[in-house]
C-alpha cells in the first residue's frame, strides 16, 4: 500500500487530473441519479465541448512555448461569418466552402505567425490585436445579421452519427450500434497492445516501471472505462461524427508532439529558447507554424460550432480562447512553458466541460458555474506549483 502511495506521489501531476475527472463524473452521476451517465447526456457532453477541446489541442502548443493565443474566439466568429456568407448567401457547395474556410484560417494564422515569429511582436500583443481585428471583421462581413440555415451536409459535422453498415443488433429492448462497438473494441485492443509494448521496452532499458499489479490495474481500468463508454454510445445512436473527428485530432497531435522531430523542437523551445536555438532548432519557424496551426484548428472549431448552432452569429466564439487556455493549465501545462501534453489539455477541457454539464443538470445557474470554473483553474495551478515546490525540496 505504501508503495502505491509512493507511486501516486511521484506521478501526482500525471494522475491528479484523471482522478479528479473520474471523481467529478462519479459525483455528478450520484447527484443526478444517473441522468449524467445517460447516453443522450454523454453525447451532449461531447457535442457541447468539442470545439473547446479542438481549440485546446492547438492552444497546448502555444502554452508549451510559454505563450497563449487570445485571438481564437474571434477567429471562430470570423470563420463562422465567412461560412455563413459562402453557404447561406452565396449558396456555394458546402465542401468547397469548408475547404476555403480552412485555407482562410491558415492565412490568418500565417499573418499572426509572421508578426510573432519574424517581427518579434510578443504573442500576447499580436493575438490581442487579432482578437479585436477578427471580431470586428466578422461583424463587418455579417453586417450585424445572423446567417442561417446552413446546408444539411454542413450540419452533419456536429449533428450526425457514424453510419452502421451492419444495421444494428437488437438485444431485448436495446438496439446496439455494431460499428461503434467494433471501433471501441479496436481502440481498447490497440491501447492494451501499446501498453504491453511500452512496458517491454521500459524493462529492456531498465527504466523505473510500475509494479506489475499496479500496471495491470491501470490497463484494466482504462479498458473497462472505454468499453463502458462505447456501450453507452452504442445503445444510443452510435459515436457522433464529431467524436471521431476529435479522436483523430487528439491522436494525431499527441503523436506529433511526443514522437516527431517537430514536437521535440517545440518542447525544447519551450524549455529553453536560447539553448534550443543554439542547438539548431529554427525557433522562428517553429513559432510561425504553431500559430498558423492554431488558427487552422480555430477554423475547424468555427465550423463545428457553426454547424452545431446551424447559424453564424456576431457573438459566436466569445471567451472560447479563455476556455481553451484554462483547459491547458488545468490539464497540467506550465505557465513558463516546456511542460504539458495534448492528452492533459483534453482531460483538462473535459474536466471543465463535465463541471459545466453536471452543474447545469443539478440546476446551478451559469453565473455560479463561471465563478466555480475560475476557482477550479486557480486551484489546479496552485496545486501544481505546490506539489512541484515540494518535490524539488525533497530531491
Amino acid at each position, binding site marked *: 500500500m505504501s508503495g502505491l502511495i509512493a507511486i501516486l506521489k511521484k506521478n501526482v501531476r500525471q494522475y491528479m487530473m484523471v482522478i479528479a475527472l473520474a471523481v467529478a463524473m462519479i459525483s455528478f452521476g450520484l447527484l443526478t441519479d444517473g441522468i449524467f451517465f445517460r447516453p443522450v447526456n454523454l453525447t451532449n457532453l461531447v457535442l457541447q465541448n468539442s470545439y473547446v477541446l479542438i481549440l485546446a489541442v492547438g492552444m497546448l502548443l502555444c502554452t508549451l512555448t510559454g505563450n497563449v493565443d487570445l485571438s481564437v474566439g474571434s477567429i471562430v466568429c470570423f470563420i463562422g461569418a465567412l461560412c455563413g456568407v459562402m453557404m447561406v448567401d452565396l449558396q456555394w457547395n458546402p465542401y468547397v466552402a469548408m475547404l476555403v474556410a480552412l485555407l482562410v484560417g491558415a492565412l490568418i494564422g500565417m499573418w499572426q505567425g509572421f508578426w510573432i515569429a519574424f517581427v518579434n511582436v510578443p504573442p500576447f500583443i499580436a493575438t490581442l490585436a487579432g482578437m479585436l481585428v477578427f471580431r470586428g471583421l466578422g461583424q463587418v462581413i455579417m453586417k450585424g445579421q445572423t446567417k442561417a440555415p446552413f446546408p444539411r451536409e454542413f450540419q452533419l459535422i456536429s449533428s450526425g452519427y457514424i453510419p452502421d453498415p451492419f444495421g444494428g443488433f437488437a438485444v431485448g429492448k436495446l438496439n446496439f450500434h455494431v460499428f461503434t462497438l467494433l471501433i471501441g473494441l479496436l481502440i481498447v485492443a490497440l491501447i492494451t497492445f501499446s501498453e504491453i509494448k511500452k512496458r517491454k521496452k521500459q524493462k529492456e532499458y531498465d527504466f523505473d516501471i510500475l509494479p506489475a499489479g499496479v500496471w495491470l490495474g491501470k490497463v484494466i481500468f482504462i479498458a473497462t472505462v472505454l468499453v463502458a463508454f462505447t456501450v453507452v454510445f452504442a445503445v444510443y445512436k452510435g459515436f457522433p461524427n464529431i467524436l471521431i473527428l476529435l479522436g483523430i485530432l487528439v491522436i494525431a497531435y499527441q503523436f506529433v508532439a511526443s514522437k516527431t*522531430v517537430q514536437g*521535440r*523542437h517545440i518542447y525544447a523551445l519551450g524549455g529553453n529558447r*536560447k539553448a534550443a536555438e543554439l542547438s*539548431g532548432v529554427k525557433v522562428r519557424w517553429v513559432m510561425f507554424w504553431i500559430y498558423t496551426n492554431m488558427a487552422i484548428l480555430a477554423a475547424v472549431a468555427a465550423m463545428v460550432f457553426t454547424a452545431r448552432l446551424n447559424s453564424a452569429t456576431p457573438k459566436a466564439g466569445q471567451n472560447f480562447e479563455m476556455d481553451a487556455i484554462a483547459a491547458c493549465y488545468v490539464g497540467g501545462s506550465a505557465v513558463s512553458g516546456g511542460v504539458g501534453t495534448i492528452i492533459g489539455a483534453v482531460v483538462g477541457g473535459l474536466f471543465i466541460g463535465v463541471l459545466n454539464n453536471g452543474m447545469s443538470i443539478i440546476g446551478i445557474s451559469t453565473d455560479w458555474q463561471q465563478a466555480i470554473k475560475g476557482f477550479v483553474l486557480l486551484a489546479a495551478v496552485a496545486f501544481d506549483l505546490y506539489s512541484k515546490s515540494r518535490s524539488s525540496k525533497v530531491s
Partner: protein
Amino acid sequence: MKHITKTFPGVKALDDVSLDVNECEIHALVGENGAGKSTLMKVLSGVYPYGTYDGDIYFQGKRCTFSSIRQSEQAGIVIIHQELALSPYLSIAENMFIGDERAKFNVINWDRTREDALKYMERVGLRENPNLPVNKLGVGKQQMVEIAKALAKNAKLLILDEPTSALNQKDSEHLLEILKELRDKSNISSVLISHKLNEVASVADSITILRDGKTIETLQVERAKDGSVSIGEERIIKGMVGREITDMFPKRNNPIGDVLFEIKDWTVLNPDNPERKKLDGVNIAVRSGEVVGLAGLVGAGRTELAMSVFGRAYGKSITGQTLIEGAAVDISTIPKAISHGVAYVPEDRKELGLVMIQNVKENTTIAKLKKISNMAVINEHDENKVAEDFCKRLNTKTPTILQMTGNLSGGNQQKVVLSKWLFTDPRVLILDEPTRGIDVGAKHEIYTIINSLAAQGMACILISSEMPEIIGMSDRIYVMSEGRITAELSGKTATQEEIMRNILNN
C-alpha cells in the same frame, strides 16, 4: 569565519575555510575561478542562510546566525555583487534608499531623501545630481552609488566582489582610493575579491588565498614609507596556482594533421553599440588533431568570436571568411554550421547549453534529430541507444537517461552538453569554458575526453579563463585582447607570465 564547509550536490565548494578580517583593514580574497571566493562571501552575507553550511561566523565578537541578507545588513555587513543591483530607471537617491526609504507613515520625504543622498555621495566623492537616473551614469559611477548605498545602510564591513572588473584604470584607482579613505576616516573594513593582482598588492593590508575550496594561506602586507610592499604579484600567483600543472592535465601524443578550420579577417560590430568593433580582423587556424587555446580576460571577445562564427549567433555586420580544409564554407546559420560539422559548447550550461527541464536523452539528441528519425518520426529505440552509449562513453553519472538534466551535478551536465555536440559528428569543436563550475575530478575527465577527440582528428578550440588549463591542454595558444589576436604562442613553452604580458601589452 571559522571552519566553513559548504557542499552543493556533487561538489564541495568550501572545505574548512577560515577567514579573519581585522578592524580598519582592506582584506583581499584571491583565488582562481571556482576557488570558492564568491561562495564564501555568500555564506558571510546570509545569501546561504545559517544551517545550510557548517562552521561559525563571528562579527565584532558575536556569533552570527544570519538567515537572510537583511539580517547581515542590519549587523553591518553589506555585499556589493559583481553585477550591480541598481534599478536602472530610478534616480541615484531612490536607488540609495531602496528598502530603507526616508519616509514618515509610508509617505516618502523627498527633501530628506535628497539631503541624505548628497551626504553619502560626498563621502564617496560622487558629484552628481541625486535625481539623475542611474542608467545615465557610467559603470564607475554606478559602482560609487552602490558603495554610497552600502554606507547608507551603516555598513561596518563592505564586501566587494570584483568591483573593478568592468571599470577602466582611472575609475578603478578612484574606487580603491575610496576604500582606503573609508578605512582611514570611517573605520570601515572591506573584503575585496579581485583577479587584478596589481590592485590587490597595492591596496590590501592582508591577503587570503583560496584554492579548490580550501584556505591556502593568509599573507600580511607590510608597507614601507616609500610605497614598496613586502608581497609581490609573483608571491600571490604562487599561492593561487600552487599545484604542479602537469599533474592535472593528461598527456596527448597524437599526430597533428593539416589545417582543418580557418577564420580569416573576422570583424564583428558590437550589436549593443554598433559604432564599436567587438572583433577586429581576427585570424585563426586550427589543424586536425590539434587543441588550440584562446586565452584572454573576460570581455576580450573570445565568446563573441566563437558565437559569431557558429551560425552568427552573436554580432552585427559580420565580415570575414570561414574555411574548412581550405574551401570557404557557409556557416551563417546554426543548422548550416551543424551540417558542416562545426559544434559550439557554450559557456553557460544552464542558459545556453541545456534544456534543464528535459531529460538526458532529449538533450543528447536535440541538435541532430534527423540522425535517429525516419520521415520526421523519432525512432525511440535508436534514441535510447544513442543516449545510453554516450552516457557510457563519457561516464556520465545519471540514474537513467530519463533523468532531468536539472537534477545532475555540474560535471555531468557538462558531459550531456558534450554528448549533444558529439552526436552531431563534428569536425570542429569549440569549447567555451568547458570546465567552469565543476569539480576537479570531473575536470580531469573532461580533459581526457578532449584529448581522445583530438586523437580522432577533431580540431578543437578551447576557450578558458583558467590559464593553467589553457597551458596544460593546448598545442598552440592565441592570446586575445580587446577583440584582437595579440600573440600566438606554443603550448609547450608558454607560461602564465608570458600570456599575461601579451594581454596587457596590447
